[in-house]
């Protein structure tokens, strides 16, 4: 497809501005990442005497050992629990709601649900962190992982419903009709027809939400306080506060917190990227 005649005519003249700019910006993007990697394998004393952009002559994994010993394995699992615990229910309930919004006969309840969710897209939900904090206290959930999971589910719903309902709308009506003629209930249709057909959108929405929740900082900062309940971004921040001058260790921690996502990026780059722009480009 890339070599169709149209494409070749289109790119015949060189895009100098775009080209120069993109190499330049690539450099800006890569430089800090390169620096994180090489610095994280320097010793602390080496960090202070060598050029920041020259790789270590005697690489060491001391920084990584310090990070692991500081409890990052536990924080990693906290992050996994919160992310999985929030994303799966969020995507499931969003999928059901999206199916209802598209497939049901018109109903005031669904219309208002849809309106409320669309409004949720326009509102910076972080601005409501104080009442969320109050609700979590009143539910006696303060300083638990569930306190992070519940609001994360809620915050994920509006965009998920939007993306999924746009997708379900594109499923040909004949397919639903034939399911009905076969005597399937709507509930069966939901799982047997809509779910498999919506899979690309489900993957997209799952990835988008997972990334957002994995990297979330405000909710854990406000809703937890015990060290053993820290999720990775919060742990990273407190670690930085503790080991302020041990830059190699801090950067090793940065790299370790991003590693699962980077691994995922290597495996499923396309889906990850389409997940990121879910709902914005369709």
């Amino acid at each position, binding site marked *: 497809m890339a070599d169709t005649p149209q494409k070749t005519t289109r790119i015949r003249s060189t895009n100098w501005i775009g080209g120069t700019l993109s190499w330049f910006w690539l450099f800006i993007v890569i430089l800090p990442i390169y620096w994180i990697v090489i610095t994280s394998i320097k010793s602390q004393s080496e960090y202070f005497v060598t050029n920041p952009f020259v790789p270590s002559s005697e690489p060491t994994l001391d920084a990584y050992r310090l990070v692991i010993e500081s409890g990052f394995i536990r924080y990693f699992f906290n992050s996994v629990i919160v992310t999985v615990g929030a994303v799966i229910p969020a995507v499931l309930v969003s999928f059901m709601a999206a199916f209802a919004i598209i*497939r049901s006969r*018109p109903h005031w309840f669904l219309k208002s649900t849809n309106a409320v969710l669309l409004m949720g897209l326009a509102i910076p939900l972080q601005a409501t962190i104080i009442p969320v904090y109050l609700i979590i206290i009143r539910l006696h959930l303060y300083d638990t992982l569930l306190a992070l999971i519940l609001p994360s589910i809620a915050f994920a719903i509006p965009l998920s419903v939007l993306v999924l309902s746009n997708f379900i709308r594109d499923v040909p009506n004949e397919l639903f009709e034939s399911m009905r003629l076969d005597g399937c209930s709507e509930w069966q249709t939901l799982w047997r027809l809509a779910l498999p057909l919506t899979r690309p959108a489900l993957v997209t929405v799952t990835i988008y939400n997972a990334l957002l929740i994995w990297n979330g900082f405000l909710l854990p900062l406000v809703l937890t306080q015990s060290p053993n309940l820290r999720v990775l971004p919060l742990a990273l921040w407190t670690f930085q506060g503790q080991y302020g001058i041990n830059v190699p260790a801090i950067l090793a921690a940065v790299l370790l917190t991003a590693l699962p996502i980077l691994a995922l990026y290597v495996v499923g780059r396309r889906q990850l990227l389409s997940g990121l722009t879910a709902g914005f480009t369709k």
Partner: protein
Amino acid sequence: MTAASVGSARPAPSRSAKSVHGRSLGWLAVPALVFFVAFGVIPLIGVLLLSFTTWDGIGEVVPSGLTSWKSVLSDPGLPHAMWVTFQVAALSWLFQTPMSILLGVFLAGAQKYRAFLAVLYFIPLLLSSAAIAITFKALLDPNFGIGTGLGLPFMSQDWLGEPKLALGVVVFVVSWQFIPFHSLIYQGAVRQIPTSMYEAAQIDGAGRMRQFFSITLPQLKNTIVTSSTLMVVGSLTFFDLIYVLTAGGPGDATRVLALDMYKRGFQANLMGPASAIGVILVLVGLLLALLFRRLGGGDQTASQLEGA
């Protein structure tokens, strides 16, 4: 949660709804609605109610009328925070938009090496704001950071210690984090522009520049609106990045509204005034979203390609 785009919303039931056999599936939407009401709608009403109370974050919530609003509105900290928020939003928009468009157009090209570029290019999207802020904080160290590394003395400034520089750093780091995202959106949009338009332009003898300004840019209008909405409304909620990078400093040079809210609420234990700022944030966010929607001429998912 940067997903504050009212723009991409469109009203739901249409074609399929009519043909369905009249069963009501409302109950399927109940779980989603319950979650969203509990932690989305109630907090939204709650933030308004709390702005008329006094609460230290631990004890009882005591109604106190307009006390919180009076203290917030008479505090010179508020206009300052609004001004800083505006500067961050405006400057990062001014920097990000042209960069993202140019990069998106470039990355949309078909050559193999561009696909390779794109792999590295989108890495900032994967990192948490906390990780990015911590990295830049260390990288901008005047003694052991980038200036020393590149041998460029002018890069060895006290980046986060000077008010003007710190604001610039915030804008730069925000851009570093989000330009890839917006280029990704533009890349997708550019690929949807029909090649026939460019062919026609070429036959008419239009040069590259002319094609860019007469075809690419107008065709990207909707995308520009969507991307700008996300940038500007999203910039209201840059909390974690700025909190970790500068904590609002030096002094209060980078104390944006979201940070102001957090500090008043959770550090000074003044939940009432902090809620008032929360209300302001919600209102500004809604207003901006509506404004951009108006700019985009309503339904943004309606294709601009129609009739092309």
